[in-house]
């Protein structure tokens, strides 16, 4: 069952990431060129490109199951990697691939379906004695029913999209009076994001940590975990900084939670890479939240500390290879951070900062990995998420990794857009973050401003404004003289003296 041709049914950094590993494995990679991003960088990483840039369909190609199947059949492509988002967690797509003898790189349609349905997933967890939060049994249909359930388990509660993920269709309800409005908002958000407005209710744990375990399983029933990722630095349930391991876990907790994660995966005969998410409260109780049946955005931190290539293992497992690694063979080495560099204006409530990346320059070192789907001249569009790059930094231990990260962020220059770099720097400067004492309320509780403010920087910026203004006044005077000579002077040429230092 060797894969010869692989379609990457995705875009951006994850498409680049998948193609890099697939190419190294000698697989011919295929990408799809879309009308929304005909000049995107990921296309230059593919061996073959299917050009659909003239198609202006309502459904984006990466969500169009039948069209993708047709493309693969026509081009004799024998496997597809869905990346994350889009069809990555569609049991229907996985099944249509199976019916057409195409290898879907991911778990079985049955695993995706069961873990995707939060109600079934919880029943399975209960059956395997994995701790759960109190909540509704199945979905709630109306806000009055929601009120009833919430009355029984006690406020605060959280409404969640049954088909959800990624923080969409999620609302915390503090008191009864808010239920109607929140129910409506969460439902309409869920409808938009997942085409399914179903909601369920859960007891809301205030200020938990978000800790998830990476799972790897093969088709022969071998399942191991690759340790945890700490993803508590979030804004509106969107992860911003992740790390592995977590500063909150002791070795015995790691063993206990790891076992629970493997049990969840085993309950659906899971194969491929997956992630089991837990909440950890301030008394170190953990609760199963959900299992993501895909590769995650933050998978690189696990790769940095384990030295494994998760995409490679996904492909090998999809080809039927046995997972030769046993749990005791997995070694954890050092500490890794991932910073999501998004095109967002942290000084204006993280609003998207769309536009062209005029220049970009990355720090370089053997401890640093950059995963990106853009290059100089790329456009950040409103069609997709605002991620520019992921900066991943590895260090011997947490302290060293923080120092290395701080330095790396200072050498990451982006021109043309506002980015979350100042936010990442200010998190790293926070004492409680440095001491590993934080939870999902970190942004609200610890950060009065979301960027690193420095009076000296402000003064230099003010000087630079005056400098440019004075330069313009001066060149207005001199331009007239130079027009007569037939040449214009650029402001920067006037300033040779500036290089004198």
């Amino acid at each position, binding site marked *: 069952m060797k894969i010869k041709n692989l379609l990457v049914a995705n875009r951006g950094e994850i498409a680049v990431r998948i193609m890099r590993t697939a190419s190294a494995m000698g697989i011919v990679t295929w990408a799809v060129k879309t009308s929304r991003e005909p000049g995107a960088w990921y296309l230059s990483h593919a061996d073959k490109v299917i050009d659909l840039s003239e198609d202006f369909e309502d459904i984006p190609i990466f969500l169009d199951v039948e069209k993708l199947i047709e493309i693969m059949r026509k081009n004799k492509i024998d496997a597809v990697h869905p990346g994350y988002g889009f069809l990555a967690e569609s049991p229907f797509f996985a099944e249509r691939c199976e019916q057409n003898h195409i290898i879907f790189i991911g778990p079985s349609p049955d695993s995706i379906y069961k873990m995707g349905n939060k109600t079934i997933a919880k029943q399975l967890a209960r059956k395997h004695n994995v701790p759960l939060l109190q909540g509704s049994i199945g979905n709630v249909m109306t806000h009055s029913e929601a009120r009833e359930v919430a009355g029984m388990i006690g406020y605060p509660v959280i409404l969640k999209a049954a088909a959800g993920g990624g923080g969409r269709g999620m609302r915390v309800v503090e008191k009864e009076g808010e239920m109607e409005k929140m129910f409506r908002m969460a439902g309409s958000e869920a409808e938009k994001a997942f085409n399914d407005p179903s909601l369920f209710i859960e007891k809301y744990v205030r200020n938990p940590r978000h800790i998830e375990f990476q799972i790897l399983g093969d088709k022969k029933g071998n399942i191991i975990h690759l340790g945890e990722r700490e993803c508590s630095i979030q804004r509106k349930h969107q992860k911003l900084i992740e790390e592995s391991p977590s500063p909150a876990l002791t070795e015995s907790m790691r063993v206990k939670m790891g076992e629970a994660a493997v049990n969840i995966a085993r309950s659906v005969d899971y194969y491929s890479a997956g992630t089991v998410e837990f909440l950890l409260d301030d008394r170190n109780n953990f609760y199963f939240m959900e299992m993501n049946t895909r590769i995650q955005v933050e998978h690189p931190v696990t790769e940095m500390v384990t030295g494994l290539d998760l995409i490679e293992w996904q492909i090998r497992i999809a080809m039927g290879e046995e997972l030769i690694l046993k749990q005791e063979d997995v070694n954890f080495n050092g500490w890794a951070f991932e910073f999501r560099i998004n095109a967002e204006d942290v000084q204006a409530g993280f609003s998207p900062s769309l536009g062209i990346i005029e220049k970009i320059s990355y720090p370089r070192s053997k401890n640093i990995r950059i995963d990106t789907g853009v290059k100089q001249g790329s456009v950040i569009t409103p069609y997709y998420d605002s991620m520019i790059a992921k900066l991943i930094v590895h260090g011997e231990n947490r302290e060293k990794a923080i120092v290395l990260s701080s330095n790396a962020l*200072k050498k990451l220059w982006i021109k043309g857009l506002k980015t979350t770099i100042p936010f990442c720097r200010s998190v790293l400067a926070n004492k409680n973050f440095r001491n590993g004492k934080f939870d999902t309320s970190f942004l609200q509780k610890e950060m009065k401003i979301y960027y*690193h403010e420095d009076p000296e920087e402000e*003064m230099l910026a003010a*000087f630079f404004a005056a*400098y440019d203004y004075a330069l313009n006044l001066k060149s207005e005077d001199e331009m007239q003289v130079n027009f007569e000579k037939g040449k214009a002077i650029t402001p920067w040429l006037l*300033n040779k003296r*500036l290089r004198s230092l």
Partner: protein
Amino acid sequence: MDKFIVCGSGKKKFEVIQPLLEKPKVKGKKLDLCIVQEPDGFNYIIWKRKKYQVDILEKNQNKYTIMINGVWYSFTVETPISYKRRKYLAKTASSSKIERVSAPMPGKIIDIMVEENSEIRQGDPVVILEAMKMQNEILSHVNGRIKKINIKTNDSVMKDDVILEIERG
């Protein structure tokens, strides 16, 4: 011509003397700095052996938005004469009774929760704006009465578009 007053947010101001000469004076202090444009296209200020990436994000006559190490600051650059005029104007301008609520980010209006002429209190949601697939409540900053609504449900708005006007009460 060689003295400028750079006004920042709030009441911050920076007096800059001789910005084009070596060792310009900022807030009365001589700065031994250097501006470099590197071949890679980035501009830097080098000061006290530290390198600051600096850029002009926006420029409109004397209004500047400068980004330094990823953080932006807005300024207006005034000459001593224009600064006097600005201060005079600020003193005479009466404070407006109309509060304009504008979109904090580009997006789509999902729901409008108020009507024209309805009373509103500070902190009340006025509209729900969807951006990047997330729904955000836009809240009123003042108590008052809705004077005018400029948008309809399902309208797309750009950042800083005025969504509605509230008369302070």
